[in-house]
């Protein structure tokens, strides 16, 4: 088989998995646990093998496009789907398949006898489809579709325990943040399409477009949402409501780093937009600094890890902004592995502390940092960190509340006007 065939076959496997699991759920005959486990493992093992084989076949070829077909076309505008295979996409795809497979095997034992077992694996497979669409996409259509699937499956997994109110509330919040930021990607896509008549990435890379800087900033908005950058970072700790394995893969490795991947993918676009690159660096560094500060005061295992993720993703973004793409890719893959393992092991924290204490012979008590600051400033800073930099509260007060207020006023106006013109009922 040729490289495109291999990659395509590998990418179709998770889609098949979604179809099988989804159909079984739809007719209310979920597969048995052992059957699901075998299917999931086989699917991701197959996908991993396919991507690796495709990468081997691609040796020496920098880039290949694989057209999948045209949705529809009108004069000057073509809505097509194609894959783009190169080192970046195949490496990340193989990595995603590996992690999804490992987490699948882990969750098969971890979620044993859980009422939502079948739903979890359906959502995991859906997520894998979304992430592979983003990764392998050769045009913006596919990126956007994958982006939406990833967002939806993330939100549904945050709300996995839907018999309690908090997971549902937080799942909804994650979903809303995603959707608001998705406007950026959608608008960017429309602008590109408007100018080039196609969303083809190679086309975008080849010729500068007039709205390049604007498009870059719009993409950055989407990335900031998905990768939990300032000011949207408040959703990341709230996403820790789901089962541990989904937290590991989503917020340790793949979902939260999908934004960084898209920046890498679109880096030719950003090379021509220095202002956007400067913005990426600034955003990444500020987020990293903020997350490192807030992470220091977190008192629970998963929130501490989520801020640790945020710190590193911020740094990765900054590296991309500076143009150090290879370093950023290594950082991204390494960080994803380290963090996923930490998330999966987070319920072992007590045991690990105990071991560490015995090995060292007593651990030193934690000490207050920033002791060069006056005590009052330190307390202010501590409260600032404990309140997660007031980001959520500020968003709620200065964005959400005025927005809702405006909507309500408009609603009131509409009622008043329609009553006047249509006559009272």
């Amino acid at each position, binding site marked *: 088989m040729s490289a495109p065939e291999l990659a395509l076959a590998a990418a179709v496997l998770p889609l098949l998995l979604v179809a099988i699991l989804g159909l079984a759920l739809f007719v209310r005959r979920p597969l048995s646990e*052992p059957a699901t486990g075998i299917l999931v493992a086989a699917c991701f093992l197959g996908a991993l093998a396919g991507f690796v084989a495709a990468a081997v076949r691609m040796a020496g070829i920098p880039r290949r496009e694989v057209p999948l077909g045209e949705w529809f076309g009108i004069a000057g505008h073509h809505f097509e789907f194609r894959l783009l295979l190169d080192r970046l996409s195949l490496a990340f795809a193989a990595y995603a398949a*590996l992690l999804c497979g*490992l987490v699948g*095997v*882990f*969750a*098969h*034992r*971890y979620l044993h*006898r*859980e009422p939502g077992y079948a739903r979890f694996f359906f959502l995991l497979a859906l997520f894998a489809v979304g992430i592979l669409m983003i990764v392998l996409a050769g045009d913006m259509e596919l990126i956007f579709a994958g982006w939406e699937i990833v967002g939806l499956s993330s939100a549904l997994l945050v709300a996995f*325990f839907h018999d309690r109110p*908090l997971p549902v509330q937080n799942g909804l919040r994650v979903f809303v943040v995603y959707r608001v930021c998705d406007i950026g990607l959608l608008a960017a896509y429309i602008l590109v399409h408007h100018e080039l008549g196609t969303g083809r990435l190679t086309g975008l890379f080849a010729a500068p477009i007039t709205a390049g800087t604007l498009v870059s900033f719009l993409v950055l908005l989407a990335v900031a949402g998905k990768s939990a950058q300032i000011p949207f970072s408040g959703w990341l700790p709230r996403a*820790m*409501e789901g*089962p*541990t394995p989904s937290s590991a893969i989503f917020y340790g490795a793949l979902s939260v780093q999908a934004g960084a991947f898209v920046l890498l993918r679109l880096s030719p676009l950003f090379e021509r937009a220095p202002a956007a690159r400067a913005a990426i660096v600034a955003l990444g560094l500020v987020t990293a600094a903020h997350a*490192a500060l807030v992470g*220091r*005061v977190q*008192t*629970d*295992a*998963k*929130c501490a890890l989520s801020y*640790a993720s945020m*710190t*590193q993703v911020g*740094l990765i973004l900054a590296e991309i902004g500076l143009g150090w793409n290879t370093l950023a890719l290594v*950082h991204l893959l*390494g*960080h994803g*592995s*380290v963090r996923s393992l*930490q998330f*999966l*092991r*987070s*319920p072992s*924290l*007590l*045991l690990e502390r105990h071991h*560490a*204490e015995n*090995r*060292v*012979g*007593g651990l030193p*008590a*934690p000490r*207050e*940092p920033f002791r060069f600051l006056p005590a009052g400033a330190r*307390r202010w800073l*501590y*409260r600032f*960190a*404990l*309140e997660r930099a*007031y980001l959520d509260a500020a968003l709620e007060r*200065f964005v959400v509340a005025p927005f809702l207020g405006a909507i309500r006023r408009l609603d009131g106006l509409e009622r008043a006007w329609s009553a006047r013109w249509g006559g009272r009922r």
Partner: protein
Amino acid sequence: MSESSLDDPDPSSRLRSAVAAAGRLLPAQGPISIFIHHNTLHAFEGLPFEEAVVRGGELLGCEPYLAEDRYRAELARGRIRPADLAAVLREDLGPAAGELVAGRLTRLELRLAMLGQPVRAISGSELEWILGETAVRKHPHLWQAALRAAAEGPPPPAPRLVRHRDFLVAAGRGDPDALVHPLLIRLCAAFLDQGLAIWPMPDREEGLYRAFQRLYGRGGGPPEPWARGLAAELRRAAEETAEESALASLARLGVPRDEWEPFLTATLLALRGWAGMIRQAELRPDRMPAQAPPASLVDFVAVRLLLDRLAAAHLDGSPPETLRARRAPPPPPPVSARERAFLLFQVARSLGWSPAEVSPIGGEIEAFPEVDRRRVFQLAYERRHRIAILDALAAHVSFPAPAPRFQAVFCLDEREESLRRHLEEVDPAGETYGTAGFFGVAMYYRGASDARAVPLCPVAIRPRHEVEEEVVAERRATARRRARWRAAWGRFAHGFELGSRTFTLGAILSWLLGLYAAARLASRVLCPRLAARVRHHTERLVGTPEETALALEHRPDVRPALGEQAGFTVEEMAAIVRRLLEETGLVSRLSDLVLVVGHGSTSLNNPHESAHDCGACGGGRGGPNARALAQMANDPRVRRLLGIPDRTWFVGAYHNSCDDSIATFDLHRVPAHARPLLAAAGAAMEEAAARNAHERFRRFEFAPAASLEQAVAHVEARSQDLAQPRPEYGHATNAVCIVGRRARTRGLFLDRRAFLVSYDPDRDPDGAILARILGAVIPVCAGINLEYYFSYVDPSGYGCHTKLPHNITSLLGVMDGHASDLRTGLPWQMVEIHEPVRLLVVVEAPLERVRAVLAAERLVRNRWIQLAALDPAANVIQVFDPRSGEFAPHRPESAALPRVSSSRRWYEGRTGHLSCAVVGGGVEG
């Protein structure tokens, strides 16, 4: 301001006592790393069980029993029999059972009918939907008849509204707790943190209230509208103590003095996990794992009331003082005739009445409400189990007991029942005993590679003695070298954990160790057992040498880090050994070899790991206790004092109940004459442990039918698997406690459900030994049993529900997800196979002795446990009835027990609970 608090001579002492009284209702669970099982409703033990579960359930918002449907399913599969229901109802109703209620129907028949078919009290739109859409439409005449017979009833009791929050929620103004709790959770977690955060909370050494005041009293605080006045409020009251602040808040909330206690109770229970942990830190600072901040429940109340006050004012839009009067909801309407007719209709359906037969018995139906029906079901459920166990004990004939070749003393833990049974099956010349698994050795113990000493004894005892494990002299240089390596490694690993969370170090570690982490992730997920073996071999390179000894001997010149005395004097050792030999009845039957087997459990990714350890060691591991006891009993001076035969040798051992491995201690000291015997006994133990693993295996779903070797490999992998939320099932299914000679239970298959305590009734004429044994054993076993009862009956209210979203917080407990109350109780994965029955304690002793020792015991009197006496001389059992205070003879329903040749024959291929059977004893089958 309410007048009453001004008149009071000492409002602050009133406040303190109200807070203390309310605090007693909070969960009593301490730090999760030392998990101690206790009765979840301990505070209600002064009430009869059936009353306590209802009262406690109302207060805590939890279920008293299983749902009716669950019991009905048990009825359908024969676990509850109709005869059980009839017997319970007859006892419940007394003479009233036979009275006619509808002309031709006795009250007993009516109630049985109501138990057989669901009778649901439904109102509002749900009722209208059912009337319009379902069964009723098929039987219009019956419905009309029921409607004619029913009349309007008195209104149901109004919902109890106490806190301002209750009134606001009832009025649809929003939930102030949703505003207050996130902040309060963050504060409590930061205040109590045992070292999870890199940056500890400033000023926490001055208490929660002061720290809060200093942090939030400065400007530029949180921009949430509801908390806008917080800084000003705190600054205004800068000089106030927590008590003064709480009193001021109570006045501003308009709570009169006589309502303080219920009000504060409801206030504390709203976030009871955290409030409970604050209280635990206040009462038992010695049990905090790392540092104990000066916690105080009054501080918590002060902070909470202040926040509650601001949030209520924000949502209500006016000062909260009169809120409760202004927002009082209207009283509930009377129960409509339609609602009552629907009850009647359902009963008429289940009785098969024709429309003409329907008579107005609405009051009779309502006199047997849902909670009573569930109680009757529960009693019947327990009755069936009790009869099965007592029948088996009455039918079981003691095997002839030859003089034992070796003996083994185990913990009384019900998980050791199967190991003991298998040991006796493997080697019928072996004899086993059960006793509290700290073996009377109460000590602070520090292992050779431990950083600090831990108490190893029941939680009620504070040990006086400290014992250290020391590396033997010739290996000390190696030990020191390895300790240095180990410390370097530990510092690196810990530094990695913390460093990976920081800015620069986190980046460097990601660049350098990403590939390594990926490989580790893959190996630990895909082949946990192999990965664990590799890890253990590596660790052993820098581990403490295995040649160690316990420094048991009293050392007057050494001041211990914990406790009062380093080591035990000879007299103390002799007293401990004597007590063990007396209590178990070993004293007259000592063979040449006595194994003393402690137990514990290791598993990964399991915050509740300690709950699987030995309860008698206070949630610790009993290996060192077993080793210490053996060493004491082998001491020539102790032997002289007690007259232990020269040929008898004691060997300490440790059973890991998760991977079913056995470790033995101090083998080099075993004298030559005992070595062949030890080799034989050791081999029997290994075989028994493997069979034990195989028996446990049947409970794990999707574990394939397997050979012994596969079962051993499986349980080992389970204990080392990051992805395994059920490394073992712990105490689940426990139901019985049998105190008596092993001969009475030997060869009886008890399905790992019985605590087995050895006691020789012939050597205890005055009952002093029995009183001593039961005084220690009953609270521990009842605590375990009741904790499982409550966590099973209401997994999300009393238990901590599923483990899957659990999140370790402050190194003290777990939350659900990112910011919830601290979850106490047991997770569903631990209890899912449990049967919620109250512990049935069977004591083999003369009736009068049992009565003298136990009948007045509060747990017995209030029916938190069931009690029966087994006659030492005959197969006659008497069951205690706490209502009458009398024993009544048990009349067996079946006289024959199934007999099989081995345990395996009995359990193989079956996954559910198994009834008793006679196994082994030379039976073919």
